[in-house]
């Protein structure tokens, strides 16, 4: 009876002890520097080695509420371990993306490493594995020698930063923000991170993206990507951010002004995307109608302000695909103040007509 009581007590206390141990290990993981795969893997192995009994504690630690600016690294560590126990196949894919294997990519029609598909085709829930890979184990990859290895590294890095945005996983917000701000990274990587931040960060990301667009100290490529990314935030605040900047002569008239203006116009088209608002469902329909109307109006105004960018604006109008915008461009093609404006508007009529015919 005495022994039985002790066994029961041990059984009762075991999960608590495991949770305590996991908590300590996760605290240590949160302190592991970016790229410190040795430290992280040592911690990970201990946690994953506990098997299914670790899952309750990992679920608690990886709960959505814990993915805060301060807590996301710890939450990510927890979720990555959980996923490694629950879905070892996904973990294996993230650890060894097939598109990075020279034997496989040499069979591609274009024989270069490409692994976006490997990550994008995984379930959305596996994003923490990609964040883990990016933060700690990317450099552990056994890249090929020379130029091939450089291409593999570039493919892996950009794919890992692209996939969280593809999945629209809000847990990736702060990881993407950190990558976008990391000046040690190539601009192309920071661009991917910026776009993913827009896709994952929600309204909370707008201010950060605005600041990046406005920051003259940032590379122009990163500022451009931040402008596109604002368009990924499905909220009227994104419209305000883009509209105010397109109207800011200091910004669009200064150094790189044309590039920024074009990037902002691109962001307006993305924000007004008909398919994207459809995908957000009926609950967002009213907001979507309003935002799309504003975006189309702003794009037509840009035809007046920047007729030389008619091709870009034309494409964005086709993405917004608002029926009444066709009337607006037709009117502008007749009433435009200058010939350049009238021609710019006219060049949009046929493409927009074709686009709208696809929705009938």
């Amino acid at each position: 009876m005495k022994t039985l009581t002790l066994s029961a007590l041990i059984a009762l206390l075991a999960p608590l002890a495991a949770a305590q141990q996991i908590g300590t290990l996760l605290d240590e993981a949160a302190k592991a520097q970016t790229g410190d795969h040795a430290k992280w893997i040592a911690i990970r192995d201990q946690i994953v080695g506990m098997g299914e009994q670790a899952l309750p504690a990992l679920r608690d630690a990886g709960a959505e509420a814990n993915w805060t600016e301060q807590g996301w690294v710890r939450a990510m560590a927890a979720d990555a371990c959980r996923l490694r126990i629950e879905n070892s196949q996904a973990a294996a894919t993230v650890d060894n993306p097939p598109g990075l294997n020279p034997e496989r990519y040499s069979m591609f029609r274009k024989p270069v490493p490409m692994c976006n598909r490997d990550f994008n085709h995984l379930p959305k829930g596996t994003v923490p594995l990609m964040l883990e890979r990016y933060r700690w184990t990317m450099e552990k990859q056994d890249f090929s020698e020379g130029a091939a290895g450089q291409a593999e590294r570039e493919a892996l890095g950009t794919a890992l930063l692209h996939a969280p945005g593809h999945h629209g996983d809000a847990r990736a917000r702060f990881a993407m923000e950190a990558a976008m701000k990391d000046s040690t990274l190539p601009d192309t990587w920071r661009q991917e991170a910026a776009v993913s931040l827009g896709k994952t960060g929600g309204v909370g990301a707008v201010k950060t993206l605005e600041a990046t667009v406005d920051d003259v100290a940032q590379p122009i490529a990163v500022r451009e990507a931040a402008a596109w990314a604002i368009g990924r935030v499905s909220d009227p605040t994104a419209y305000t951010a883009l509209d105010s900047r397109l109207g800011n002569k200091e910004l669009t008239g200064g150094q790189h002004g044309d590039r920024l203006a074009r990037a902002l116009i691109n962001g307006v088209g993305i924000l007004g995307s008909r398919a994207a608002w459809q995908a957000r469902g009926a609950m967002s329909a009213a907001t979507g109608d309003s935002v799309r109307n504003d975006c189309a109006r702003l794009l037509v105004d840009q035809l007046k302000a920047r007729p030389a960018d008619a091709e870009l604006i034309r494409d964005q109008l086709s993405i917004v695909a608002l029926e009444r915008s066709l009337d607006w461009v037709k009117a502008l093609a007749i009433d435009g103040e200058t010939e350049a404006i009238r021609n710019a508007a006219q060049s949009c009529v046929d493409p927009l007509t074709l686009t709208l015919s696809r929705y009938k």
Partner: protein
Amino acid sequence: MSRQKRTFTWAVSVLGAIGLVLAACGGGGGGKTPGGKPATTAGGKTFADLDVDSNRNGALTDDAADDDFEDQWNQTHGAVFYFNIDDDNSNGQTDHSESAKTAKDILDLTPVVARHMSGLPAGGSAKILVNAAAQGRIRMYMYQAATPTQMSPTAGEYDIPFAMLGTGDVIMAIEGNTRLSPSWNGQVTLTFEVRDSGGTVQSSDVIQLRQAPPIFATNLWTPTQVQVVVDNTGGLSNNSALIAALTTATTAAGITLVQVPGAPYNYDRWIQDSHEPGVHLLPTNGAPRRSIVFNYQCYRNRQIDTWVVPGLIDPDQGVLADFGVVDTSLSYGGNIEVVPPHNSRAWGRALIGGGNGNLVGTTTSATDYMDNTNRQWFDANPIMGPHVQATTEWLAVGHIDEYTMFIPAPNTARGYVCLIASPMRAWNQLFAMDAAGGGGNVVFQGRTSFGWQTTVGAIVGNGPLGTLQQQVQARIDQGRNEIKAATGLTDADFIELPVLFEHVGGGYLAAYNPGVVNMVCLPGANGTTYLIIPDPEGPNDAGGDIWQQDILAQINPLFTAGNPVDVAFTDVFYSYHDLLGEAHCGTNTIRTAPDDDWWDK
């Protein structure tokens, strides 16, 4: 004035033909009637007379038929010669690189005859001058009995021995040894001069020739041979389904199916990319015109290219090689298609992909073009050029066959249509299915390797993926407008088929579902067109795969009872699609040119 017609026909035995010419010369007579040229004396002509088959009927005659307007190139006159790239003696060398000619190769030479002259000036000379642009780009031969011996020019002038000219016709021949280029459109002017001892020209004659331009096949031409690389490894990438579909279609249509073993070429299955076949058409004495296959070898440097050379160099088949140095996949064969005949372009026009747009969804430049050497070569071609270019720089592979394909459409006024990928068509169909409660329907059923299998709801619930489809649609619409502007095609000539796109790396894109426009099009001699279409693997409704149904609903009405279509949706999922290509990318087709002349258009 009597006129003795003397004929040189190279469609028959060359040795016999040469004898015929020599015999005819011995008979004397014959002269140039129009143009005020003097008559011929019994011992030979008193004027310089250089003859060629200028009326392109396959017979060289010493009469007005070939003499009149022989100094011009137009729709009715001007001789044709061949860029001698085949290998009639099967020794692995292109024939223009060999001066020793076999009897069969002699058929590829275009005869040129300097007629027997009398009264040649003592101490004088006879020369054939080549226009500056053609110098070094042709070879001339002179027959000693029945054997052609290469002539060596000095500063663009060939010597014609007086001794020969004074005793009979001097029979020569010409071949091309250089492809067309921006500095040479294939035109050759040969000026035959007889000079006195002081070098003063006493008499001269001029003929015009043009090197036959390479003509790429359109998908409307009847195939004779389909090539495919076999992957029978048994793994995911094995392509037995495509081979089975090709076997069925080619057997029914009487087409040869060449199955290239994959193992020696490391299963490099992209045989479409290694080369692009076409023909050189030459005049003959009666129909059909002589057709010599060429294979334009692309700058690619991958395994299956080594099958093309030497595999596709043999009698009456050659390879045009060594194009460009820029390592871009836009220079591969999948990026060369032909818009079938339109407007005044009776043979169609080369269509390639490339451009200086942006990566889709960005304002980042993504400029990429086919190597300029290739583009310049298309533009130098009076039949296929100048090329039409449509935007593809945003695609990972960057080929025009990723979103367009021309097929016969006998039930239309034009006789063909351009099938064009439409991501929004595919998206809207999925959206409608989702809205009707079919969000749980499976897309890419059973394709669990590499995580492909998904659902309708998962696709249309992904907003950024939806935006991407719209952005790609805008880009494809731009490409369509570029084709329309260059060719005069209208929206009615385009049929949109459902193809979604996705990011594959570095901001570049490829088809998400198997790209159905990337099909194999085989219009058989039996009147049936066989289309081997990548199975789109869409979701099912009560009628089956919604994308297959849509494709059939649009394609079937293009055909007639007399000229029906036979569609085979074929599994290329892991064998090609997963590796960034589709069915067309994995095949190549040699086709028979229409029995028509290019030179009279």
